[in-house]
């Protein structure tokens, strides 16, 4: 029994997106495709423990889902006349694997820029990731009904506005790919450092799902450097997950982390991807540069061995592409290591980031190192007020309280 359960989980991971994509193409309707895919898996849960796992689970699921769709449409003959006709035009299900790019179409549809960002995230997790609506609702701490409506509304818009189930127009491709990667990164970040204070600080289920989806997208677009860069960035970040929150729920900063607890396998894989991108000689995009920065950090057994000049150089490269204040803030953290806290403080004091907790946390650390305790305390206070993540807030409170103890 358990064995079959495990097989079904594995097949679900491997086949869900392909199944939804194939059915969407055949049935011309994402909504029906999703429902039939879910029903096919429900049948598998019922049948496989009794009949055994079929030799080709993917084909079994497609056939089952397709039959159900036909049955259902027959039952709704009058209302669905058009669909019935459309169905008649299609051939019987072809074996899976012949139309792999269906999954890529699915990804582009779910991440379409005409949909609200939160709808893109939810749809991607549902249609490509195969998470259920309650699972997605839990992940984002949204009430289940509300999440269901969000997804339903997005599906209705796809249908009514005719968002295509296809690869974007040639001139739209670069923007659309970065839109897809942004959705994946958003899912990862929500898992890695959730902005919501009412939840666990790090959510391995979401980071794992983001990585799985990014692996898929990279597999579908092997020539896109940024897809590879994003995967490397996620792996090198995920590798530090276990060391990142203490037993008492505090955030542990990079310098204080037990580097022995880092996942060497993920680091090796991330480094290999970064090296592979470097070897192409192509100008790196944002994710590739961020991955390279993380590769430098994860390259040394002790923070004191960190190559800070390399990190500052990478941030300079990033700032040329993306001159945002947040990039300059992160750059200043490396500058503090290279040129001292005074130089870094002068750089960040000009940044328009008064509403961002990390700005105040960084200022607090720099002021502390300069011995300006009172100002540091005020900056910690502000950072705690603005921090949404529980582990981050706990860490900041601890740092602030150390300061008052010392003074």
């Amino acid at each position: 029994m358990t064995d079959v359960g495990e097989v079904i989980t594995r097949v679900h991971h491997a086949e869900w997106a392909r199944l939804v994509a194939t059915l969407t193409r055949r049935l011309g309707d994402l909504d029906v495709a999703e429902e039939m895919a879910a029903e096919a898996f429900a049948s598998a849960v019922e049948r496989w423990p009794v009949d055994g796992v079929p030799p080709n689970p993917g084909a079994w699921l497609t056939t089952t889902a397709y039959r159900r769709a036909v049955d259902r449409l027959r039952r709704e003959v009058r209302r669905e006349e058009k669909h019935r006709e459309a169905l008649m035009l299609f051939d019987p299900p072809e074996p899976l694997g012949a139309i792999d790019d269906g999954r890529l179409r699915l990804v582009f549809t779910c991440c379409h820029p005409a949909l609200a960002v939160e709808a893109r995230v939810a749809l991607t997790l549902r249609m490509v990731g195969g998470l259920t609506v309650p699972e997605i609702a839990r992940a984002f701490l949204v009430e289940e009904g509300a999440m269901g409506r969000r997804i339903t509304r997005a599906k209705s818009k796809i249908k009514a506005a005719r968002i295509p189930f296809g690869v974007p127009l040639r001139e739209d491709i670069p923007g659309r790919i970065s839109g897809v990667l942004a959705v994946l990164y958003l899912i990862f970040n929500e898992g890695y450092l959730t902005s919501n204070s009412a939840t666990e600080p790090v959510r391995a289920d979401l980071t794992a799902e983001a990585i799985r989806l990014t692996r898929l997208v990279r597999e579908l677009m092997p020539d896109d450097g940024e897809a590879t860069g994003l995967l490397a960035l996620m792996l090198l970040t995920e590798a530090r997950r276990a060391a990142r929150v203490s037993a008492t729920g505090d955030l542990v900063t990079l310098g204080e982390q037990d580097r022995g607890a880092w996942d060497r396998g993920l680091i090796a894989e991330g480094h290999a991807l970064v090296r592979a991108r470097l070897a192409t000689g192509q100008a790196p995009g944002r994710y590739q540069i961020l991955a390279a920065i993380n590769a430098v950090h994860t390259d040394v057994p002790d923070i004191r061995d960190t190559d800070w000049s390399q990190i500052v150089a990478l941030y300079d490269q990033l700032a040329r592409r993306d001159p945002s204040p947040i990039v300059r803030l992160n750059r200043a953290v490396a500058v503090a290591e290279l040129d001292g806290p005074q130089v870094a403080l002068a750089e960040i004091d000009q940044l328009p980031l008064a509403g961002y907790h990390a700005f105040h946390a960084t200022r607090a650390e720099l002021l502390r190192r300069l011995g300006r305790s009172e100002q540091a305390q005020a900056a910690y206070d502000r950072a705690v007020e603005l921090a949404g993540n529980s582990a981050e807030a706990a860490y900041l409170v601890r740092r602030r309280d150390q300061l008052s103890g010392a003074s």
Partner: protein
Amino acid sequence: MAQYLMSVLDEKGGRATAEEMAAIDVFNEKLQADGNWVFAGGLASPGSATVVDGRDGEPVFTDGPYLESKEHIIGFWIVEAPHLDVALRLAAQGSKSCNRRVELRPFLSE
């Protein structure tokens, strides 16, 4: 093929300038040449509107627009496109030509 309404949103309260009109003409010609054209028109100011309620007995006429708003529709295109990606491209070109934002909305198709 699906049809979409592209409404031109105006907050300046002015009519199109000669330059904008010229750009709109170029865009209209392109729509016609590419087979996306259905219809287009400019609208007089919202102050010229009359709300009519003929549902019950003698019709009731009310002066002025139905909604007072900062932004109102001063013109529109109806275009035909195979799907939203093409319609979005057209809307972007239309917006550029008339130098205003446009709202893109599909017609009901079934």
